[in-house]
């Protein structure tokens, strides 16, 4: 667990090397009062920084609004067992579809049935 005992933290104590780079980056790059220096580098032009910044953004933030699965690591899907269950289900569904198709074709072959009956079968 990465929880740090905050009650033991000393005010502005020697910043531990373990302080998360992500925590520092998001703060250091945050636009506070911006003083236009003489050397201007748009930090967002730095490819590495852009990649890092992209890592900050959680799927929680945006994806759900778009109606897609924002929970990349949903516990129910994250375990191997759960994936296996989905795979199995897929396999069973494929078999079921194949079986239905076979049946459907057999019935079509067997009887030049009136339209109505056909529709029944294909449902």
């Amino acid at each position, binding site marked *: *667990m*990465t*929880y*740090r005992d*905050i*009650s033991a*933290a000393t*005010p*502005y104590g020697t*910043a531990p090397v373990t*302080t*998360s*780079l*992500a925590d*520092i980056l*998001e*703060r*250091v*790059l*945050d*636009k*506070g*009062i*911006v*003083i236009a*220096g*003489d*050397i*201007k*580098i748009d*930090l967002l*032009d*730095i490819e*590495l*920084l852009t990649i890092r*910044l*992209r*890592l*900050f*953004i*959680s*799927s*929680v933030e945006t994806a*759900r609004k778009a109606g897609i699965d*924002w*929970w*990349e*690591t*949903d*516990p*129910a899907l*994250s375990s191997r*067992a*759960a994936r296996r*269950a989905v795979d*199995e*289900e897929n396999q*069973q*569904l494929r078999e*079921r579809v194949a079986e239905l198709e076979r049946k459907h074709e057999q019935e079509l072959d067997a009887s030049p049935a009136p339209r109505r009956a056909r529709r029944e079968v294909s449902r």
Partner: protein
Amino acid sequence: VTKAQAPAATKAAADGVLTCVFAVCRTGDPAALARAPGHRGGGSVGLLELGGPLRAVTQDVPSSLFAEDALRSRLEDSAELEACVRTHHAVVTAAAAAGPVVPLPLATLFTEAGRAREALTGKRPQFTAVLDRVEGCAEWAVKVYTTQHGAGPTGSDPAEHTGSGRAYLTRVRERERDRHARQDAALTSAARVHEAVSRLAVDSVRRRPHGTGITGRDRVQVMNGAYLVTHARTAEMTSLVTAMRDDPEHGLDIEATGPWAPYSFTGGASL
């Protein structure tokens, strides 16, 4: 066309030195700053008078490493970027030990100290306002993650896998509903944590949660908050966070770190 810029650029190249500004503070502690490591290849970290009690925390740095092209290519390198960012943070943190600070963005560079003074004195009212606001406070970071326990896969009973397509669709829908319910519950709890900590804070900001690229695939961060808390209320805040973390009803992993220099409360938009 670029003649106007030529003298400054030439001078910097000739002198081989640029002025890097880390933060603005009042008075400051020169001895403590002199002990701060500063950027590689630079001089010692010191204070630049900005008029009145305001001082800038500065360091002379070699233009061979900090001129535009050199700096750009160094920041493209993972190790150099990390060293640069950590140094900036270390100097800001050292300055914050002596009193309120306004941290400046990474790599705020001027061709000489006089240019830095000129640019910074123009912003004195803003600096003073921020320093007044953050005096006697520190920033604390509180993050909330979902925990993995419970919520096993539904419909894993083999017997359920046979049956009609309609039964299958029902199972899918139920699974979706369960998942949304869990997500909603986590977000609601996270919002409650944010509200509770905010009540103790002078100011608060919800940052974008970190993605699983940072947290790891098994940890979903649902809340990333920053809180400006007075030193007097720090103990209260830490016990509140501990209590919420230990509350089984929340079922959340809560992480708090600090104290930070007030990076998130200098008046800019959050990342």
